[in-house]
């Protein structure tokens, strides 16, 4: 409302011709001017706390590619709210990513990745994104957002197979990024990693090859332990395999659990 409304008639100046805009003869002041280097301020987009969350993602490299798996739960705090949510994404025919943490941030990045891939395809110049390229992109985006103080509250497992060479990497919400033959996020780091590392070591010790079948079996064992011991999981999961042939996502599947020990608990 006009500023001088409460003053007596004689003390009021002329009412402004319009409100919110520049005074006649003055330059228009953009909102929040002087707060940043650029003259145009983007809206603040901080993830201060994750809301709908995905739990662990596990991944393992085998002799012809990689397998990444995750359950299909989007938790809303302690409520198992969204029970059929896919946390794996086929990025290209050579790369697949799995995401844990805030689901909204995952969808945002998913959108960016999709648009990136489409625009790359439009170039139609014989080039495409390699798994390492996607990994690098995610690393830089995650670290950039972290530096700006508006992190994407996610942890990524990036897997792929290009020119016969398997790739598996991990990217964190603080921009920690590394390649490893075994990758796990969240509670998977404590439950799945020891199991997967040991299982692969056993296979090597017995002189067997770590084939796709063996790798998928190891990943299923890891997911089973997580189902037993992680409160924020459900018995429904997907897994993705990236090999020279391409990327395929299988699921949703259920895990067999063994509750025989229950009768021994007095």
């Amino acid at each position, binding site marked *: 409302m006009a500023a001088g409304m409460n003053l007596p008639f004689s003390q009021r100046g002329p009412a402004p011709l319009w409100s919110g805009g520049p005074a006649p003869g003055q330059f228009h002041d953009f909102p929040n001017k002087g707060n940043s280097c650029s003259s145009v301020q983007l809206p603040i987009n901080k993830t201060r706390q994750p809301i709908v969350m995905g739990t662990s993602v596990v991944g393992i490299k085998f002799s012809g590619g990689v397998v990444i798996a995750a359950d299909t739960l989007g938790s809303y705090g302690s409520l198992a709210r969204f029970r059929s949510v896919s946390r794996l994404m086929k990025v290209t025919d050579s790369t697949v990513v799995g995401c844990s943490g805030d689901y909204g941030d995952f969808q945002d990045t998913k959108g960016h990745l999709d648009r990136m891939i489409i625009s790359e395809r439009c170039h139609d110049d014989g080039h495409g994104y390699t798994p390492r390229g996607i990994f690098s992109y995610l690393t830089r985006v995650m670290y950039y957002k972290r530096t700006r103080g508006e992190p994407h509250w996610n942890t990524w497992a990036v897997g792929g197979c290009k020119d016969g060479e398997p790739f598996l990497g991990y990217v964190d919400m603080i921009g920690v990024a590394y390649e490893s033959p075994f990758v796990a996020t969240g509670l998977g780091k404590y439950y799945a990693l020891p*199991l997967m590392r040991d299982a692969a070591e056993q296979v090597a010790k017995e002189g067997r090859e770590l084939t796709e079948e063996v790798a998928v079996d190891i990943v299923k*064992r890891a997911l089973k332990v997580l189902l037993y011991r992680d409160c924020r999981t459900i018995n429904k999961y997907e897994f993705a395999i990236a090999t020279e042939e391409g990327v395929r996502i299988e699921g949703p599947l259920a895990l067999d659990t063994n509750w025989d020990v229950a009768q021994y608990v007095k």
Partner: protein
Amino acid sequence: MAEDQSSDCFSFDLFERNEKLKRDGFKVPKAIKTGTTIAGIVYKDGVVLGADTRATEGSVVADKNCAKIHYLAPNMYCCGAGTAADTENVTSLTSSKLTLHRLYTGRETLVSTALRMLKQYLSRYGGHVGAYLVLGGVDKTGPRLFTVHAHGSTDTLPYVTMGSGSLAAMSVFEDRYRPNMEKEEAMLLVRDAIASGIFNDLGSGSHVDLCVITKGKVEYLRPFDVANKKGERAGDYSYKPGTTAVLNVDIRKFDVVDEQVTAVAMET
């Protein structure tokens, strides 16, 4: 008549004074924790207990080969995680109490007796006695396995793990435990669980100790598996005679002419 309660549990009368001292710069010594992976399972003939052997003081290894499987009675042993002094002393105290109890009753101790003593003691100290235990043994009721937390809660389970490496160890158990395993298989499973903690948890390390308890027999295997052997030094820094060329040899003998021994008076 006012009862003197102070002998039964900790007195916190000096808490405010201690807080002030801390604010004024007094350096509180860090408690030695055991970091730890401890585990136990019930198998066909009894129980198998296992533990790693690293004791940590903050992020420093205080003891590379400490013993975390404590004697309680001829038929039961107790693994301890948490504050090293607390686990050591609470098991030692309970062991003494059990000996007296055995003399009084004239019978082999029941594992649940030790459990009751431990949980009532720890509960009284409100969790301040930082002892997290895996208690296992065999008595007339059969093989018994329990966990005890510092606040005094207990669990009765066929397989248990405690300590910072407990998740890594539990991962192995959840993957491979079956009821009524044979002895060799059971020992290997516990060894693998502890090894999982040793190699994946920074608070655990060094070797695997095992304790196999059956009716009438205890095998205390320390170490069961030397998982981290100290490396042999690869380089040799000794110099062979002749490395430095000898240019000249000059030997002078000193003849002892006179020897005098006197007492020097103390300074006053």
